[in-house]
């Protein structure tokens, strides 16, 4: 369970990217974080793992984020970044997926089996010995997810997971995400994706929670969405 109390992120230039947020996300939920550019989505995600300094309280499974717990928190929360190129920096996918396991002290003999199971789960075993430099956007995205999933986090954060993906890769991603067990918090602009994957949506505006509820009603509320600078989703029926 993730619990945020009065969480704020204030940058050195005094910009309040996240402003006094109170939020609880329960185990097994798939929550969308929606907001216009600059609404504070990425800042919020980075604050949760202590990459960006924040005020207030962050608790993951009753463990508070503090300087001495940051390592354990990062083990419990996995982050899939918007641009997979920033995440994949090892010479092969195998090495990249093993990166986190090695940092957390897993023995070499156990690493290969764990990596293989994870690649198999995401159906990307064929990428095991490939170089990240030679992969397509969709393949890079799945490899980046594998690098996080392999550490068995209880909460996974996704920053714009459908960015740079073609329709087929997007479809694959949706199917993979639906199968993933950990709790998910997904920052995105892709409203049809939210409607398909998420059970709850949180609307951010100027770093504050503007609305929190069922995506199937919220996303189609034109007035609400426009107030946050987002174009409301079109119901599948209306498309026809």
């Amino acid at each position, binding site marked *: 369970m993730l619990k945020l109390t009065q969480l704020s992120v204030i940058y050195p230039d005094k910009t309040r990217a996240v402003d006094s947020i109170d939020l609880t996300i329960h185990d097994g939920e798939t929550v969308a974080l929606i907001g216009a550019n600059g609404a504070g989505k990425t800042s919020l995600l980075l604050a949760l793992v202590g990459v960006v300094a924040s005020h207030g309280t962050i608790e993951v499974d009753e463990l508070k984020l503090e300087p001495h717990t940051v390592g354990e928190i990062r083990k419990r929360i*996995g982050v899939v970044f918007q*641009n997979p*190129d920033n*995440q994949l920096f090892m*010479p092969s996918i*195998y090495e990249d997926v093993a990166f986190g396991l090695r*940092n*957390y002290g897993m023995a070499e003999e156990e690493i290969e089996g764990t990596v293989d199971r994870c690649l198999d789960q995401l159906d990307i075993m064929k990428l095991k010995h490939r*170089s990240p430099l030679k992969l397509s956007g969709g393949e890079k995205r799945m490899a980046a997810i594998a690098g996080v999933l392999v550490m068995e986090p209880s909460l996974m954060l996704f920053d714009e997971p459908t960015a740079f993906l073609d329709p087929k890769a997007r479809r694959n991603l949706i199917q993979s995400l639906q199968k993933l067990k950990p709790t998910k918090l997904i920052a995105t602009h892709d409203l049809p994706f939210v409607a398909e994957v998420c059970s709850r949506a949180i609307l951010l505006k100027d770093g504050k929670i503007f609305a929190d509820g069922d995506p199937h009603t919220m996303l189609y509320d034109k007035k609400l969405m426009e107030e946050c600078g987002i174009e409301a989703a079109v119901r599948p029926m209306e498309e026809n």
Partner: protein
Amino acid sequence: MVDVRSKIHEIYTLEQLSSGRSVIHDLHPSVKILATFFYIVLVLSFDRHTFFALTPFIFYPVLLMSLSDTPYAMILKRVALALPFSLFAGLSNVFFDQATMFTISGLNFSYGFVSLIVLLFRTFLCVAAVLILVAVTPFTQITAQMRRMHIPDLLVTLFEMTYRYLGSLAEETSVMIIAYKLRHNSDKGIELKDMGSFVGQLLLKSIDRAEHVYNAMKCRGYGRYDRKRRKRSLKFNDYLFLLLAIGFPLFFRFIDLNLLFQPWIMKVTLC
């Protein structure tokens, strides 16, 4: 532009071999690092005019490559990239040190020429030894071992970051060159007048990118090295390798093969 990416890809291809399986791959990383270090020190300890005594040292890279199934061409191609630097460094010796060292079939070989050949040979041996180490030891194990050897953390981190950012830098450079060429009415590359802003932007973008990469690394536990990692103890094979890798070069360092070749050289010279 794509060339920048493929060159970087070539460097990483060598590292990909490190996940292979062989008797050399299975050795403890500290043993491989020590053996390589010792080998390089011995190779560099020879006098700049000593060639024949150095020749047995070729066996170390050749044996390691064959035992680890490392493709010879892959190593030779990369070593060849380093040789021009030594060639330029040693070329001046040929002109300034023209005294005859020995003669074969009427051909005079000057001290300068011999020192150039020795310099090239030593470069070949040292670079090959380092490349083989990279090809048989995962990069993470090399840096972890460096930390255990109490090499300052700052230096090891710098080494790691530089190596990892090479890919990002190449990617950034490649994209920027493409964007430049598409809006430039020539195929000659970047003009000198645009070079300043190009390099400046590249630097700023690289810093930005580097920060993102670093954040991603931290999110997956980077910086927790060695606190929890299980240490592997040395096995019989490790001791045996270390004994051979240090023993043989030491033997050849102090048994001067010049002495064995001397009568033959004298004979050729007299002819």
